[in-house]
């Protein structure tokens, strides 16, 4: 069994409403960039894992594993699509990691893609609700903003978290996105802008919600032996953890914490033999701004209930003690659901190799990425090290 698995190349499309890009354009561009970045040949790649939540509903295209291999010029190799709603990307990364760790392959590509803007907003909302429990949530009229609004209310009730603190997550992430040339929203928002934006699901407003986005990302993984030969800038995956919870929110013991994230984080820290305080920065799943607060609590960056407070204190800012979402996060970088988990890995690699430009976190040596599916039924946590 190979000792370690490393990432030797990354690539992403721009994120946004990309009218001129089809589903296959997106993933082909991201994959090509990753291969170029790794400095390898397509023929070096032995297997492919692709995460996408709902290409069937968003682009009327299934069987994307073979399609992606085809358009990448990789036909012949084993290609596998994985799906865990918005955590599909994180899952693809983990499957690629396992494939190398098992000793079966030496070089594997993991990609994530979603083409979301070819359908109306209404259809997108319905498609995304597939990440929840159709029978017990969707059929009753619940949407994702509504589920996260319930969690927000509970968090506010239990811990006294304020809507201002939650709004500060959006303000920070929009600021970080102004430093990210691939981000969907490269503009600042003020706390007043957030608090005055239209109500989506009380108390969540428009600027507490991540957008509908087109985008794709890809990373090239290699076994330790190969990675060292091919690259002198390898980022090592020191932990890969996946955990699940009940599909429906109402079946959870707590509405104010994401238990799958707690479990995945615990397992990840054990694998990497580190503690939360050792993490230099994290890319977390802020599909709604409350989700970032629940994420940093679950990941152990603060006590439960203290996420709003440390956000307010600036601890999660780029120059804070634990920078969260230097990329702009899902809120401002954009959230092409299936691509998000891989995009987080791309950002972590850029940070750890000192290539993050104006949003570079100083002395970044260990980064954590955290990808959630649905309202928390799936959590994937990876720890990456220089």
């Amino acid at each position: 069994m190979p000792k370690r698995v490393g990432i030797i190349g990354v690539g992403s499309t721009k994120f946004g409403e990309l009218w001129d890009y089809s589903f296959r354009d997106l993933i082909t561009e991201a994959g090509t960039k990753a291969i170029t970045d790794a400095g390898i040949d397509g023929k070096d790649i032995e297997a492919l894992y692709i995460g996408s939540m709902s290409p069937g509903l968003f682009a009327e295209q299934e069987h994307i594993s073979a399609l992606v291999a085809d358009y990448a010029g990789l036909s012949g190799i084993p290609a596998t699509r994985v799906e865990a709603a918005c955590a599909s990307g994180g899952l693809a990364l983990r499957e690629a990691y396992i494939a190398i760790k098992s000793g079966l392959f030496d070089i594997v590509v993991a990609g994530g893609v979603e083409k979301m803007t070819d359908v109306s907003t209404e259809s997108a909302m319905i498609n995304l609700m597939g990440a929840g429990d159709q029978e017990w949530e969707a059929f009753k009229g619940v949407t994702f903003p509504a589920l996260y609004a319930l969690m927000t209310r509970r968090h506010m009730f239990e811990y006294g978290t304020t809507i201002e603190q939650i709004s500060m997550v959006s303000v920070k992430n929009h600021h970080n996105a102004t430093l990210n040339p691939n981000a969907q929203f490269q503009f600042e928002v003020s706390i007043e802008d957030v608090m005055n934006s239209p109500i989506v699901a009380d108390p969540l407003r428009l600027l507490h919600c991540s957008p509908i986005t087109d985008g794709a990302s890809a990373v090239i993984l290699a076994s330790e032996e190969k990675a060292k030969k091919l690259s002198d800038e390898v980022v090592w995956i020191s932990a890969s953890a996946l955990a699940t919870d009940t599909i429906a929110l109402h079946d959870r013991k707590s509405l104010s914490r994401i238990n799958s994230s707690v479990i995945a984080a615990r397992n990840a820290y054990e694998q990497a033999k580190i503690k939360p305080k050792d993490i230099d920065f994290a890319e977390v799943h802020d599909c709604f701004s409350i989700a970032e607060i629940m994420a940093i609590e679950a990941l152990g960056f603060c006590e439960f209930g203290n996420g709003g407070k440390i956000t307010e204190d600036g601890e999660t800012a780029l120059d804070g003690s634990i920078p969260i979402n230097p990329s702009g996060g899902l809120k401002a970088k954009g959230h092409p659901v299936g691509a998000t988990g891989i995009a987080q890995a791309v950002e972590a690699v850029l940070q750890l190799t000192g290539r993050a430009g104006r949003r570079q976190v100083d002395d970044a040596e260990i980064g954590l990425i955290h990808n959630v599916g649905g309202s928390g039924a799936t959590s994937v946590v990876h720890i990456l090290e220089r």
Partner: protein
Amino acid sequence: MKGIGIIGYGVYIPRYRIRVDEIARVWGANAESISNSLMVYEKSVPALDEDTATISVECARNAIQHSKINPSDIGAIYVGSESHPYVVKPTSTIVAAAIGATSELTAADYEFACKAGTAAIQTCMGLVALGMIRYGLAIGADTAQGKPGDALEYTASAGGGAYIIGREKLIAEIIDTYSFTTDTPDFWRREGQEFPSHGARFTGQPAYFRHVISAASGIMERNDLKPEDFDYVVFHQPNGKFPLRVARILGFKREQVMKGLVTPYIGNTYSGSTLIGLANILDDAVSGNLILAVSYGSGAGSDAFIIKVKKENERRRNKKTVKKFMEDKEYIDYSVYAKLKGKIKGVKLQK
């Protein structure tokens, strides 16, 4: 094309108005934020007995009155609309009969979303240039549809403009026309569907902005003209914001746009939009004024025109000004609006 232009024009705007805040009230929306984001305050609403045919006839009559031509000398009538009362059977023949144009003429209905009226002007210019007709009548008119509760409902209104094209006694010469057309599905309505569908933000940058900017830049480049050479500019105006933004991108000043910007007070009259805006400019324009007019039709395309105002426009002012139509108004509430627009379920308003 030299020496071809506008002999006369006429507009018509129904007198009923509904305020944007009244529509917002019904849907529980934030009126102020809608008004500000669209820069539309009220819109015209057609009465029960008004449709694209009656609006076309009204503006055609006003154009005849203004031009003082004999309707029997009209050789072609084209009515552009996306709300023709009949799917099969022309509106243009109704107009011809109503204004007393003789049977010796060609007529047809046009459809190209909001730019069918300017396409009609181009056709008339061609026929005049070839000497096939003496006068052509080009009309753009609509009773626009918007699904209740949809963003379109705040702007979709009714109105029209008619232009008589020829060579004699021009009030303004059309120096050049230029079009930019692509297949861009930003807004559509299929046969049998009551309301149109749209691609939300896709109707902006890749649709309206790309086509309007391309047509405007294309015609200015071809004629070696710059934004500052024009006294006025009028763009298709689905709301108040889009034409102002497009003007800014192209380098026009706000003062050049405001005279032709009527949508904030009458809503988006679709095929009538550019034509009514242009008429508002012509109502006051003086000899030598240079005007750039650029329409936009979803689907998508833009027709651009460079128009030079002649002395005749000052000698023969149009008495039925756009301003008069804008000021002659009566406010209705949403319930009356729902009745007039046939939105009350179970009440059959049309045969």
